[in-house]
């Protein structure tokens, strides 16, 4: 029985058994999807259906389902996290679609993000970039000192906070025509570079993180700005300019080791 405003949709979902498999798009029909359901709930319904039919359900990453963890990577109808701005896939609702629509659902595409299965990609490249310098070497918690000892201009603090809201989802890489990770890395560089605690290691940090980024096989930045538009957290291109400055000045000023 279908309800008055239930959606009947054709889904074209990328299916790939494992990292070695070539993979292909498969078509599925889902019926009577509530416009109020989230995109991932719609995927759950599809998977219930596949399980009932004795087929392998579609593998996709998800955890928090509230726009915080950044795992729900899906390239929907040609855009990272689908249509809509400032949201992850789990925050996308089916009311964005019309009855009878065909929806393409693909994994993030980047050499540095190999597909593991179906829509699940390996984003450990981001972890290795963080391990290369995305931290402060001294313990900054538990030995809190008087805040007035380290005055920080409000604007700088806000910019550092904004940069720190990056959830490492990889939508920037997925959207970029060059699969560049500049927005992610620049957010991580900026969140430290803007604060006094981050300054002592700033030069070394940016050099090491950029080096790791390049080694992972991400592309260069063509300043198209696609990343900023698709980023669920609205991370600004200002961070990329800051990273360029930090990197270039670090490279030119650093003493020969």
């Amino acid at each position, binding site marked *: 029985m279908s309800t008055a405003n239930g959606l009947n949709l054709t889904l074209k979902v990328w299916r790939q058994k494992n990292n070695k498999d070539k993979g292909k798009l498969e078509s599925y029909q889902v019926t009577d999807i509530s416009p109020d359901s989230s995109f991932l709930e719609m995927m759950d319904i599809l998977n219930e259906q596949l399980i009932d039919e004795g087929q392998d359900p579609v593998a996709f990453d998800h955890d928090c389902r509230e726009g915080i963890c950044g795992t729900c990577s899906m390239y929907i*109808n040609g855009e990272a996290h689908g249509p809509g701005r400032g949201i992850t896939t789990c925050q996308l609702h089916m009311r964005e679609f019309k009855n009878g629509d065909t929806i*393409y659902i693909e994994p993030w595409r*980047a050499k540095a993000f190999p597909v593991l299965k179906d829509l699940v990609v390996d984003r450990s490249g981001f972890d290795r970039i963080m391990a290369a310098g995305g931290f402060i070497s001294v313990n900054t918690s538990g030995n809190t000192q008087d805040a007035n000892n380290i005055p920080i201009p409000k604007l700088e603090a806000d910019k550092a906070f904004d940069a720190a809201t990056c959830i490492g989802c990889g939508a920037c890489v997925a*959207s970029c025509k060059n699969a560049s990770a500049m927005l992610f890395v620049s957010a991580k560089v900026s969140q430290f570079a803007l604060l006094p605690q981050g300054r002592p290691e700033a030069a070394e940090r940016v050099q090491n993180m950029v080096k790791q980024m390049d080694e992972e096989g991400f*592309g260069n930045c*063509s300043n198209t700005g*696609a990343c900023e*538009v*698709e980023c669920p957290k609205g991370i600004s291109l200002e961070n990329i300019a800051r990273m*360029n400055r930090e990197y270039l000045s670090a490279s030119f000023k650093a003493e020969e080791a």
Partner: protein
Amino acid sequence: MSWFKETFGSSIGRKFAMALSALFLIIFLLQHLIINLTSVFSEETFNSLSHFMGTNPVVQFALQPVLIIGVIFHFVMGFILEIRNKNAREVKYAKNEGGANSSWMSRNMIWSGLFILFFLGFHFADFWIPEIIHKYIEVHPDDPNRYYAETVHMFENPIRVGIYTLSFVFLALHLKHGFQSAFQSMGARHSKYTPMIKKIGDAYSIVVPALYIFIAVYHHFTQAI
């Protein structure tokens, strides 16, 4: 020098070099335009400027090689970046909405660039090689007043005027994105100045190519009469 190799071999260093070469070309294009423009106003000024540019040893043997190296560096690095960027995504999306989040110009720098390169090749064969032959191989007696008539004569041919026009449209598209992009690549971004840089870039990318086109069209029509 390993730091130098490492810096300019990095993704950010490459784009920095790209931006520097591009800014150099932007300044060159302005200088070239100003000389060309004088051909519309004064035959005499155009001749004397052209004669100076064509015979001054500093221009011929210092600035000209720098320009050639700058151009070659820019498009070779453009190709290198394009290849690396293409390699960063081996499997394409079945459905991709590039227009939803970025401008056509920004996504197609390689195509606008390739068209400009085609024009540069044409300009080289059409103007530069005959000049070199004229000056250094056949060694004609120095005639400081030949430039105006030669230039105006060039624009008699409507095909040449058409190629000029189309090429400068592609230059406009290249610079519409490229001008401000070069500043971003160098890290030059500031809430006070960036809006102004973008406005200057928009103006440059329209006015400069439009004036080049104007000069070609102007000479084409004024001599036909």
